[in-house]
């Protein structure tokens, strides 16, 4: 028997989305094959990690061995600068979930961070549709041209958020609850609102390892296959996984920070293997570890 490698060429291609302002922008997506299948296609942009900063209270990431992240500055902009300096992070994700402050105060704090740093910023809102539809357009308008990635836009509030993204040239996170068809539907509706395909990122909703991770994993694989194999234009947007909060609220992470880092790291890596183009992490330890795997073990030497 003669062996011939079974190489697949896909008819579809993932959109390339540019995040952030001019000089320091970051590109995600753009591949014409499955994750890490550089033996049969081109993946111009490796998966990206973003580290999250809570707009109100910062966690303490002290851990015996893996470096010092205790007594983090409470001011989000200072923390952002520390992360950029010490970890070289490329993207910041501002998190608003659970913040018990007014919407105006949230917007004010977010804008302060956006003005203080010049790397791409993700604004991951409160998740409460009524709040986000006011908060996100407010930030979008004040920071026109910053190439922010804003969301989550859901079927309840996508109109307001899409309109702001169109008007002020921002990008949008389109969130649907673990449902391939609903994800496609929301993309169609966003396009109808005037957004370009390269302004949308799909958020299929991420669950943590041990808490339904496999559902997200398979939804991501199905979206990628629909985009690549079936050339479904409405599924070709890059995928985002927001996993920090989900991972760190598990008892397994809370009871042991080392286990928590691996819990978050394994969740991140699984989603990256399933097709996530950008992953939002909570712990700087996880960031370091996962980034090391990406650059040391998952970078195609020949392609560079």
């Amino acid at each position, binding site marked *: 028997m003669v062996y011939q490698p079974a190489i697949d060429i896909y008819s579809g291609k993932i959109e390339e989305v540019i995040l952030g302002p001019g000089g320091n922008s970051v590109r995600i997506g753009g591949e014409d094959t499955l994750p890490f299948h550089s*033996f049969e296609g081109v993946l111009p942009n490796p998966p990206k990690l973003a580290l999250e900063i809570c707009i109100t209270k910062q966690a303490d990431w002290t851990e015996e061995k893996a470096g010092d992240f205790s007594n983090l500055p409470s001011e989000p902009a200072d923390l952002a600068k520390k992360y950029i300096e010490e970890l070289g992070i490329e993207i910041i994700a501002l998190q608003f979930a659970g913040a018990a402050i007014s919407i105006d105060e949230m917007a004010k704090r977010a804008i302060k961070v956006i003005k203080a740093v010049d790397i791409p910023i993700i604004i991951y809102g409160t998740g409460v549709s009524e709040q986000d539809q006011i908060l996100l357009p407010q930030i979008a308008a004040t920071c026109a041209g910053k190439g922010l990635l804003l969301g989550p836009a859901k079927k309840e509030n996508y109109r307001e958020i899409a309109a702001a993204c169109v008007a002020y040239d921002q990008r949008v996170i389109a969130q649907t609850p673990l449902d391939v068809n609903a994800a496609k539907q929301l993309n169609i509706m966003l396009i109808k609102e005037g957004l370009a395909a390269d302004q949308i990122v799909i958020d299929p909703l991420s669950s943590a390892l041990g808490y339904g991770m496999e559902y997200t994993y398979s939804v991501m694989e199905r979206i990628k296959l629909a985009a690549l194999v079936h050339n479904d234009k409405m599924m070709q947007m890059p995928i985002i996984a927001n996993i920090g909060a989900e991972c760190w609220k598990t*008892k397994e992470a809370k009871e042991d920070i080392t286990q928590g880092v691996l819990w978050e790291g394994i969740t991140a*890596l699984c989603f990256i293997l399933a097709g996530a183009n950008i992953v939002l992490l909570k712990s700087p330890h996880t960031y370091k570890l996962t980034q090391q795997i990406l650059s040391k073990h*998952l970078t195609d030497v020949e392609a560079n």
Partner: protein
Amino acid sequence: MPIKGTDIQKRLPGTNCKECGLPTCFGFAMKLATGKLKPDACPYIAQSLREEIENLLTPPVKLVVIGTGEQALNIGEEEVMFRHEKTFFHPPGLALLISDTETDAEITAKIDKLQELQFKRVGMELRAELLALQSLSGEKAKFIALVEKVLSQAATAGIVLIAKQFDHLLAAQEICNDRKPLLYPITAANIDDAIAGLNERATPIGVQAEGIEELVPLVEKLRSAGFEQIVLDPSSKNLIEAIRDQTLIRRAALKKDFRLLGFPTITFPCFLAKEAQEEVLLAASLIAKYAGIIVVRNIKRHSLFPLLVERMNIYTDPRRPMTVEEKVYEINSPDAAAPVILTTNFALTYFAVSSEMEASKVPSFLCIQNTEGLCVLAAWSTGKFAADTIASYIKRSGIADKINHRNLIIPGYVAQIKGELEEELPDWQIIVGTREASGIPALLKRQKQLLELSGS
């Protein structure tokens, strides 16, 4: 791709000679198609058809068994590239590497660790099942001593024998043959020794070569010598190569019907990673990406447990919802005055609710009703979580004997059944809980206060 009885019939002699024991060739063809008879039963069957049928009746990825008895590891027999297409069947074996250059104390500690680190989750037992014993010292006696120590101290663990020297492998195999170990590596250099030296063709062997192309002729040679329990190692140098190799091997077997690659694989994060955490993430990737055996150097509680949970997640059958056992779960050591929450036995519902209950620190009871794995709304809409079935569950659950009050909190999503349920359970007061689990801690704290007030 199943073969049709009618297609087989066309290529049989058609003489109805009855020598196969059936009255007609058609009858024989039908039995062949369903695998009830073997082609050999017909003395006149064409060689090509015989091979075709045998191929079609064996799974595209061969089942390989390492170890014996209940603890035996089954790998292979996978049918899909993506779990949503059907399911992944046999979770990869996790192996802990021990070399014969380690001290006696280190070896004992590792063996103990493997046996000690067992976990329970959603009614499943989770553990690493293999010890990979490596001849590194170059001295056969040392390697044999290691194998003997493992035989006496780890009565059930499956064994992988790793030695560059084939005579070490052979000597080790002799003393643990009844444990059905995997011998590794069989390479171009020792394949002739292996064919000559391994009398038992059922011995599981791990074949190693530089890349898939080099692997194929070795497998061909071994198969024609009668070996069928084969595990493949294409010597991937890093994770990105491993993803490529694992994908191409499985694709060849499933999509191209290329039988020489229709075997499970063995992978070695232990040789690719420098640090323990790095090793964990490499192993995690290989769990998702088709590995059959994953050999690691470190196991700690905090690294093995997440890997085992990941393996369970990835190998969960997507066609069947994950469930937990129907029973009354005690959370934070409840007493008779503790609040009671009711929900369904869909595992994710259980996890969400129980973790919020734990986090609330309020001692409480969680009644889990068997709804065949349906979540609250789905179970309600199909009648599995309606007033009558809930009432009958509450009565049989025995919760009434554990508490001194009759307050039952039901999920917010089934608020509409409150009235009906109160009719079915006249002694009980039904409290409508929150829709989302995140509201549970606040709810429990309020309930606790109310129950304390009414109790005093």
